[in-house]
């Protein structure tokens, strides 16, 4: 075993240790807590780099080594936990630790004024540990445990400002919604274990993702003629749907923006939500297993459709939002849909490439948004911002790069290459062309809403610059925005650089990323570029059209106030209302699922009060009667009898104690008389 594989478990263990130690620190030890979290991340980052470099060398097929330990032994069965190092793990490790590290550093600036600073870093480190645990897991069980820990960390961090009722509610919503998906994952895990007898993914031929187990799973049929592998895949995908905010379980992700912005960047944009995509990529052999290899498996078709629908659905909603972070949240949901779509139609490399590039530019966008919010004194409504490009040049420049990467502006931005690959794969999908068109529509909408957001936030004039007549209406003085400290802007710059250059590892001309994942050497071939030039032109035209349209509509807006009516709202009030209210999904759930639960809860409450408490009351009355009876028996029979006996003894003793008067001679006399009597009795008896 390569040494780095032996010590791979250190990568999640170090942040976990940091979280454990910092949980013991006192509230005032802010610097040690931050130093611990960041220090552990730095070491994990270097270890991850070493692991990544190890995966680069492979002679035949992808590099793969595993380590495993026995966890639980019951009877003759042993449950094993393990970790695996392969290209998928390697690239994810580097991404998570690197983006995580930058966000940790950024948090120092963003959370500087928060009194629970130490706790924040403790939670962040816990989150990083759990996420890295998911990444290295070679066992569905370890993955599931880390998965739930990630959910816990997410809950703690969304509800970090728990004194706000909305944050507390959002934390609960996130936790419960993802739990619905996790039930599916758990059932899938149980089924997988009962069918294959192992939860290790790769185990030198015995793992559940390897040939023998897959062949068995594909061969068995279950309800409705579905292969067991399909059923298990779909159950596992349920977990991914919950975690990655796919339709219909996407509702928690936009609400999760109640958390501090670094959390939104780290958890709800870059890493945790990608865990669902990663899970699908990890169990891809199971997902794609089918008897007819040339047709996409049923499970992957489900993944594709869910992804495609989510991509467009969330993008539509994002158009009509006014909260800077909510727009990004819906954009994340939409991009996660793209990743799922990519996994479904193109395979691991296509989806994972978008995951990696998205992690960088979405973290960049969120942190840029955080910087803007910070600079505008915690204002999140894009209609009240404006003109920030002059006040915050660094934030503006990096944000613009992130925005162009997300929109997929051609050639120089990573998002273009990764998204284009998904669209190209969708075009070549044999089953249906609809996902391809949905992806194009999604791309158009993405460019549109991002341009809308950037024109609101960074162009035009800020409220503090507006004519003085307007200003007097306002009750409070509007502060001028300011640029954020360098501890916040430096990570932005680093991420912006990566948002650009990462695209070049996966272009059609030099598909290094695919080659890396499949373990082949990458070949430079510019003719491939020519093949896909047609589609690239189409998507470029779409993107530029959307940006142009959006600029034409939104750049004109001069005034900045929350009374501002959106031009789209004027044009199509009905459509706008539907979009602004997120297709009324929350209301729909409120009216159906939640109402059902509430009715059931009311019924249970009634049952509790009327039936169960009646039974309990009856039992308690019976017990009272029994105890009264037993008290009577105790007092009258037991105590009375005993007292009587005692009285008798006391009287007898009093009589006897008369003899004991201290007159020694009298005792002696008594002894003498008794002796004589004894002698007489003996003599009489002897006769």
């Amino acid at each position: 075993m390569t040494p780095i594989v032996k010590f791979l478990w250190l990568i999640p263990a170090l942040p976990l240790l940091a979280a454990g130690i910092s949980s013991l620190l006192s509230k005032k030890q802010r610097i040690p807590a931050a130093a611990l979290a960041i220090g552990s991340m730095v070491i994990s980052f270097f270890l991850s780099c070493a692991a990544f470099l190890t995966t680069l060398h492979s002679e035949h097929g992808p590099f793969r080594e595993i380590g495993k330990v026995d966890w639980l032994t019951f009877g003759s069965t042993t449950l094993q936990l393990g970790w695996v190092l392969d290209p998928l793990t390697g690239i994810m490790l580097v991404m998570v630790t690197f983006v995580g590290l930058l966000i940790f550093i950024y948090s120092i600036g963003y959370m500087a004024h928060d009194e629970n600073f130490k706790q924040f870093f403790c939670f962040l480190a816990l989150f990083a540990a759990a996420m890295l645990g998911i990444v290295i897991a070679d066992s569905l069980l370890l993955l599931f445990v880390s998965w739930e820990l990630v959910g816990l960390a997410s809950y703690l961090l969304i509800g970090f400002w728990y004194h706000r009722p909305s944050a507390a509610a959002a934390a609960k919503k996130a936790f419960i919604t993802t739990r619905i998906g996790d039930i599916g994952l758990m059932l899938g895990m149980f089924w997988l274990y009962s069918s294959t007898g192992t939860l290790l993914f790769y185990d030198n031929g015995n793992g559940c993702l390897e040939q023998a187990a897959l062949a068995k799973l594909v061969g068995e049929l279950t309800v409705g003629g579905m292969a067991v592998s399909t059923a298990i895949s779909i159950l596992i995908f349920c977990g991914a749907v919950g975690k990655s905010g796919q339709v219909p379980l996407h509702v928690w992700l936009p609400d999760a923006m109640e958390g501090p912005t670094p959390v939104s960047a780290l958890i709800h944009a870059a890493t945790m939500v990608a865990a669902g995509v990663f899970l699908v990529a990890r169990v891809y052999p199971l997902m794609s297993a089918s008897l007819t290899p040339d047709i996409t498996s049923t499970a992957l078709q489900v993944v594709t459709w869910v992804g495609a629908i989510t991509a467009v659905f969330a993008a539509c909603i994002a158009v009509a939002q006014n909260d800077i972070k909510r727009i990004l949240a819906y954009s994340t949901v939409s991009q996660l849909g793209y990743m799922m779509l990519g996994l479904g139609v193109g395979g691991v490399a296509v989806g994972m490439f978008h995951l990696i590039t998205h992690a960088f530019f979405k973290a960049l966008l969120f942190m840029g948004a955080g910087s803007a919010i910070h600079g505008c004194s915690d204002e999140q409504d894009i209609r009240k911002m404006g003109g920030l490009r002059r006040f915050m040049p660094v934030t503006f420049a990096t944000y613009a790069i992130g925005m162009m990467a997300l929109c997929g502006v051609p050639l120089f931005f990573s998002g273009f290459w990764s998204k284009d690959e998904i669209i190209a794969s969708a075009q070549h999908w044999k089953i249906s062309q609809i996902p391809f068109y949905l992806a194009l529509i999604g791309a158009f909408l993405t460019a549109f809403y991002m341009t809308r957001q950037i024109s609101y936030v960074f162009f035009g004039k800020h409220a503090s610059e507006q004519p003085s007549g307007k200003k007097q209406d306002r009750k409070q003085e509007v502060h001028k925005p300011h640029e954020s400290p360098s501890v916040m802007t430096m990570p932005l710059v680093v991420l912006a650089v990566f948002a650009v250059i990462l695209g070049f590892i996966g272009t059609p001309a030099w598909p290094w990323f695919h080659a890396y994942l499949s373990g082949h050497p990458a070949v430079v071939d510019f003719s491939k570029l020519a093949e896909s030039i047609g589609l690239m032109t189409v998507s470029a035209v779409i993107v530029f059209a959307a940006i142009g349209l959006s600029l034409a509509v939104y750049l004109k807006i001069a005034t900045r106030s929350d009374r501002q009516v959106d031009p789209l709202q004027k044009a199509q009030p009905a459509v706008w209302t539907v979009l602004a209210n997120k297709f009324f999904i929350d209301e729909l759930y409120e009216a159906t699922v939640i109402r059902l639960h509430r009715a059931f809860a009311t019924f249970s409450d009634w049952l509790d009060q009327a039936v169960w408490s009646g039974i309990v009351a009856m039992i308690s009355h019976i017990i009272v009667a029994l105890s009264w009876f037993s008290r009577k028996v105790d007092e009258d029979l037991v105590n009375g009898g005993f007292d009587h006996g005692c009285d008798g003894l006391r009287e007898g003793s009093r009589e006897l104690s008369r003899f004991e008067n201290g007159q020694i001679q009298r005792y002696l006399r008594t002894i003498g008389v008794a002796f004589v009597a004894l002698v007489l009795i003996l003599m009489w008896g002897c006769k």
Partner: protein
Amino acid sequence: MSAPLLHYVIFSTLLFCIGFAGAVTRRNAILVLIGIELMLNAANLNFIIFWRYGVAPEVLTGVVATIFSIAIAAAEAAVGLALVIAIYKHRKTMQVEKFDTLKG
């Protein structure tokens, strides 16, 4: 063998009874002690008598027992007198019937 066994036994019985009467009736603590000594000597006498008239007069068992008994009687007398003196110092009296309590 000058006198029959019965004479000695009667003698020792009388001695015991005199001692017992003295111990029971006298009020002076020292006289009570003397009575007790008489009873003890009667018992010693019995040892000697029954040894001499017993199954093995050639073995000195009776004498040895008596010597032990006398030694113990001496010790007992010493302790008894010391107690009597201690009580006298405390109570300023020799009357036995006044010594009816163990509490000082």
